[in-house]
C-alpha cells in the first residue's frame, strides 16, 4: 500500500434523479472522482440491504445510494424505505467494528447536476479520510 489510496466507491443511482443528474454533471463538464462506479437502478427502493453488504464484502471502501428528493419518489416512497435499509447497514457495520460512515443515503433531483458532483466529491473525500476498508487492508496483508 505504498501508492496513494484511491478509494473504490459504489453508487446506486436512481434513474429518475441521481443517474440523470450524473448525465447532466457530465454534460456540464463538472469534475467528480472517476473511481466511483455508478449502478443505475429503476428506483432506490430496489436497493436492498444485501446489495450494500455485498459491496462492502467484496471490497468497496464506500457505498452510497442516491435517490429522489423526499416526497418526489417516482414510486412514492422507495427512497424512504431505502433510507431505513441504509440505517440498518450502518448499524450492522458498527456492530462489526466498521465505520458506519462508509455507507450513506443522499437525495437529489435530476436537475441537480452540480449537486451530484458535490456529493461525489464529498463522499470521495470522506472515504479518502477514513482510509481503505478494513477488509482490504487485511487482504493486502
Amino acid at each position, binding site marked *: 500500500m505504498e501508492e496513494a489510496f484511491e478509494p473504490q466507491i459504489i453508487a446506486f443511482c436512481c434513474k429518475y434523479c441521481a443517474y440523470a443528474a450524473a448525465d447532466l454533471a457530465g454534460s456540464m463538464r463538472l469534475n467528480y472522482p472517476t473511481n466511483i462506479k455508478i449502478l443505475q437502478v429503476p428506483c432506490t427502493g430496489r436497493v*436492498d440491504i*444485501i446489495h450494500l*453488504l455485498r459491496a*462492502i464484502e467484496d471490497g468497496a471502501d464506500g457505498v452510497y445510494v442516491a435517490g429522489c428528493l423526499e416526497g418526489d419518489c417516482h414510486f412514492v416512497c422507495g427512497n424512504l424505505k431505502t433510507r431505513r435499509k441504509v440505517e440498518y447497514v450502518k448499524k*450492522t457495520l458498527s456492530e462489526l467494528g*466498521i465505520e458506519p460512515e462508509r455507507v450513506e443515503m443522499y437525495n437529489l433531483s435530476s436537475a441537480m447536476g452540480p449537486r451530484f458532483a458535490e456529493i461525489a466529491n464529498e463522499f470521495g473525500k470522506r472515504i479518502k479520510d477514513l482510509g481503505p476498508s478494513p477488509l482490504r487492508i487485511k*487482504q493486502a496483508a
Partner: protein
Amino acid sequence: MIVADRKPLSEIQDMIKGRDNILIIGCKGCVTVCNVGGLKEVRILASSLRIAAKKEGYSLKVDEKVLERQCDPEYIEQVKSTIHDYDAVISMACGVGPQFLSEAYPDQKFFPAVNTTFFGGAVSHGIWEERCAGCGTCVIHYFDGMCPVARCSKSLLNGPCGGSNKGKCEISKDVNCIWDMIVKKKIEQDRLNDLLNFMPAKDWRTARDGGPRTSRREELIQ
C-alpha cells in the same frame, strides 16, 4: 405465526468462533413471514459474517440454504447429503428448527441465530404483537375476541387490576391494558354483564405447566 428476533451479531460470532466452514439454514415458514429467518435474512447474516471474517483477516466459508420448513422431517432430510460438509450449522428457524436438525443429524453442531419470542401477528409492517400464549384451552370467546392469558401482564381472568391507567398497562405506557379494551368493548356491545361472572381458576395442565405437550391425530398416524 411464531415470531422471533435475530440474535445480535456478536453472539452469533461467538458461537461459531474457531470454525471456518459453516452453513446457514433459513426456513420458509413463520420466520420468513416475520422477516427474520427467510432467504433474505440468511443472505444478510452470511454476508455480515463474511465481512467480519475478512475484516479480521481469517478465511470463513459461509454457505446459504433455505428449507421449506424446519419443523417437518421430510424437509430436514433434504440436507442429508451435505450437512456433514460443514464445521457447524446455524439455523435461522424458530426454536424448533435447530432441535429437529440436531435430532436428525446428531453428529453435527447446530446453533440458533434467532430468539423465538411469541405467537403473534403483524399489526403493521415491521411491528408484530403477541396474541396467543398457547395455553391449550382457548377462552377468547368469553372476552370478545381478546385473550387476557396472553395479553394481560398478569394473565388475569377477572381483570382489570388496579394498575390499569388510561388504557395502558402498569408495566409500560407502551403496552395496552387488554382488560381496559375488553371492558370498553363489553360496554359498547351492551354485554357488561358477561364480566360480572366469576371466572374460575384455569386448568393449566393443557399449558406448558402440564409438561411438554404432544398432539396426536389418530386418523393421520401411519
